[in-house]
């Protein structure tokens, strides 16, 4: 990297003599070495997106393997051990190697651009954060060749104690949590520093894009929640290898302690996964409705409220444990309160579309799919929070359906909206609209076919995490439908992957601002130059691009002052 200083004045020189001082000039590495050594937030963002999408596809294949095994009763495609391994890998991959880091990837690419910054606050830390994630994934997946973990992504003790889970699988999972946790922590600190300090002139808190708001709160949640699981997995590691007995009742420990530590992290994790998707939806809906977001402050505030309340609900995952009724009642009520800010968001999004001028490009398709599906996950979430009802529904396919409606129907549809929305900025080319819409419909139909019937399987008594069931159970129909749906869904995802690969080379040129969007990333070229902006205009509202377009349309001085660099000191 080069550091260039223009030294304009020196007392000894009679005539100001421009002088270039170079520090540590090195030739920039080319090719793959450039990707290995980059500290550019955009390149790191791309690395994040590619790696996490590869993990998404691996996790998807694991999901299809489970669906194939469960397609018919008493199937023998997978052994019980293999099924449990695939189930554990699927959950772990989707949570820790896809949804959380893919959001960090989008955040990495777009937060500096949206706030008019040159890069993240700590570029090298940023690179570290990606490589920790990458090696976390490798460490975990290497266990496939030895002893993959089989205890589910929640790793409940004492099942994960050495006595019941010998072999290295649980340890590989622990190291994955350590590495990806450290990655997220380092990344979160970087986002906080960047967002607090590096916003463009005039971008006060009330003018910050809602996606940036959601990444800020995502970061704070990670910082608050990760230490609990980091401590938990370390204690599990010492339990397994040093006989500490934190979670082992035989040594005076308590298995419920693990559940508290895990869910104290695990529930905020749910919001960590979904809040940035909310942020993307809050960007996409106003742009394609040609209307400002309805209730900007309410959406920003409800994001913070959800995060705060999300720290107080963890034991709603533990309603069937031996726990006093008054505690269960507290966690039911705290879980209910999250329904309020979530409801606020949903109605604000609907109100944004109301009387808008809806431009139906693929991002808006996915945003509408998000709304339609997330509301189902929200309603089933309230039902599960009613703890006597949860006694029936807990650990059944109803819960599996619920969290897939929030995490796939919600978060992943949201980030597909974000992908189609921002792909032109990252690549300079548009994705194919027809292929995008076909992909949407396949995903929408496939998703609902897969997961709607799982509610019914759950209420009919089908527990989750079982590798097989009898033909007399009454669950055969639901499971066959679900498996068919999963393959439709997978086809839809595959079409987006094909669309993406094709469009990188052959897509239509996008130009700077193909969507007539509102935020600053559309001010620069697509893809942006290494320094992002030559000059950043002063921000006057939450929709700076609208102001700029208005100025340009009005012509004259205002537009000129935006388009031209301003000499220092004037």
């Amino acid at each position, binding site marked *: 990297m080069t550091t260039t200083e223009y030294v304009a004045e020196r007392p000894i020189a009679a005539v100001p003599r421009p002088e270039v001082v170079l520090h540590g000039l090195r030739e920039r590495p080319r090719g793959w070495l450039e990707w290995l050594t980059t500290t550019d937030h955009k390149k790191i963002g791309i690395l994040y997106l590619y790696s996490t999408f590869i993990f998404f596809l691996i996790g998807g294949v694991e999901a299809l393997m489970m669906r194939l095994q469960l397609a018919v009763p008493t199937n023998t495609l997978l052994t*019980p*051990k293999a099924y449990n391994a695939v189930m554990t890998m699927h959950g772990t991959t989707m949570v820790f190697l896809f949804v959380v880091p893919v959001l960090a990837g989008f955040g990495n690419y777009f937060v500096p651009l949206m706030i008019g910054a040159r890069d993240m606050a700590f570029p090298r830390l940023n690179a570290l954060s990606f490589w920790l994630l990458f090696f976390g994934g490798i460490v975990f997946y290497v266990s496939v060749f030895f002893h993959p973990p*089989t205890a*589910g992504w929640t790793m*409940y003790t*004492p*099942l994960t104690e050495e006595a*019941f889970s010998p072999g290295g699988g649980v340890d590989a999972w622990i190291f994955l949590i350590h590495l990806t946790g450290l990655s997220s922590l380092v990344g979160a600190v970087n986002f906080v520093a960047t967002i607090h300090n590096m916003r463009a002139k005039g971008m006060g808190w009330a003018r910050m894009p809602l996606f940036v708001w959601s990444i800020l709160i995502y970061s704070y949640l990670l910082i608050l929640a990760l230490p609990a699981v980091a401590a938990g997995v370390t204690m599990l590691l010492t339990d397994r290898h040093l006989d500490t007995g934190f979670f082992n009742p*035989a040594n005076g420990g*308590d*298995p*419920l302690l693990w559940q508290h530590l895990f869910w104290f992290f695990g529930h905020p994790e749910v919001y960590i996964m979904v809040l940035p998707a909310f942020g993307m939806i809050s960007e996409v809906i106003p742009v394609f*409705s*040609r*209307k400002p977001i*309805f209730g900007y*402050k309410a959406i920003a505030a409800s994001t913070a409220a959800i995060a705060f309340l999300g720290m107080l609900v963890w034991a709603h995952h533990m309603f*069937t*444990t*031996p726990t006093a*009724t008054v505690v269960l*009642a507290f966690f*039911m*009520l705290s879980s*209910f*309160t999250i329904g309020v800010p979530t*409801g*606020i968001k949903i*109605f*604000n999004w*609907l*109100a944004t*579309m*109301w*009387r*808008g*001028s*809806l431009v*139906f490009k693929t991002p808006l398709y996915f945003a*509408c799919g998000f*709304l*339609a599906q997330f509301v*189902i996950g929200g*309603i*089933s979430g*309230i*039902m599960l929070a*009613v*703890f*006597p*009802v949860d*006694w*029936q529904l807990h*650990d059944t396919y109803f819960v599996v359906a619920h969290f897939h409606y929030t995490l796939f129907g919600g978060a992943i549809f949201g980030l597909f909206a974000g992908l189609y929305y921002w792909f032109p900025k990252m690549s300079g080319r548009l994705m194919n609209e027809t292929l995008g819409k076909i992909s949407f419909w396949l995903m929408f139909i496939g998703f609902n076919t897969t997961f709607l019937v799982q*509610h019914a399987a759950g*209420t*009919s*008594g089908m527990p989750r995490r*079982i590798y097989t*069931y009898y033909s007399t159970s009454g669950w055969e129909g639901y499971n066959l439908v679900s498996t068919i749906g999963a393959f439709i869904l997978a086809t839809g995802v595959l079409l987006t992957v094909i669309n993406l690969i094709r469009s990188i080379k052959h897509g239509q040129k996008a130009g700077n601002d193909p969507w007539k969007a509102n935020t600053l990333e559309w001010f620069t070229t697509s893809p942006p130059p290494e320094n992002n902006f030559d000059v950043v205009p002063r921000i006057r509202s939450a929709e700076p691009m609208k102001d700029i377009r208005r100025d340009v349309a009005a012509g004259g001085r205002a537009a000129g002052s935006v388009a031209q660099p301003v000499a220092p000191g004037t």
Partner: protein
Amino acid sequence: MLIGPSAALADWISPESGGSPNADKVDTLYTIVLCMGIVIFVLVEGLLLYSIFKFRARRRGPQPAQVHGNTRLEVGWTVAAAVIVLVIAGITFAFLGGIKNPPSSSPTGLQGASGVQLATVGALKTPSGKALHIDVNGQQYIWRYDYVDQPRLTENRPVYAYYRMVVPTDTTVILKLNASDVIHSWWIPRLGGKADATPGHDNYTWFKIPGKYAGQIFKGQCAELCGEGHADMRAEVQALPPDQFKAWFERQRNDLLASQKALAAQRKAGVGQ
């Protein structure tokens, strides 16, 4: 009673019920909350679909009004959301007693089912104190039942059974759950919600099977991942009229005593050789 409507719904969109009053009440509570959810679902999806069809961009259509918000409207739906969850909370607490607290055994239930269990913290008690108490122990991958307040095998050993739990009808059965290896979860859907069997902790649940289900078998399986055999860790509860239950119990006790004796004889023979 509640069995009529729940039996109609039981099959697919609501939890299983019709074996015990707590399961029936959970089903009713679920159905009430579901109905409220359906109202919200229809409202949101309706607004969404209406917007999708009504507000499509038209060629040379006018620029939509640039509305930034509406405080009264926003306060309105915030309050509405809060009221809905408060109502659900109120309804839940109204139902809670009937789901959580076991009723007394009926006069037609097992006589002599005593309540001499030590009352420990968290233990369930019927109003009259009378109930049949069974200790349930989860093990990879089978359930064991100890009939702790019935005539014993020896002074310290209660009569026990595995896999199939036989119980008298019209009798409140209180289960004390524990596990000896990893966490399991006891669940017979038609007899009520699940309760985790956790090593180092006691957990409690109950059911009371009406007389009309005498002879029926209620099936369920472990609901907490407990290892490779988790899916095969099934359980059954067979309901018998009290007199038939007594007969079964005596038979079970005698069988166990006989096998104990046989085992002792075998051991002796083994030592003698």
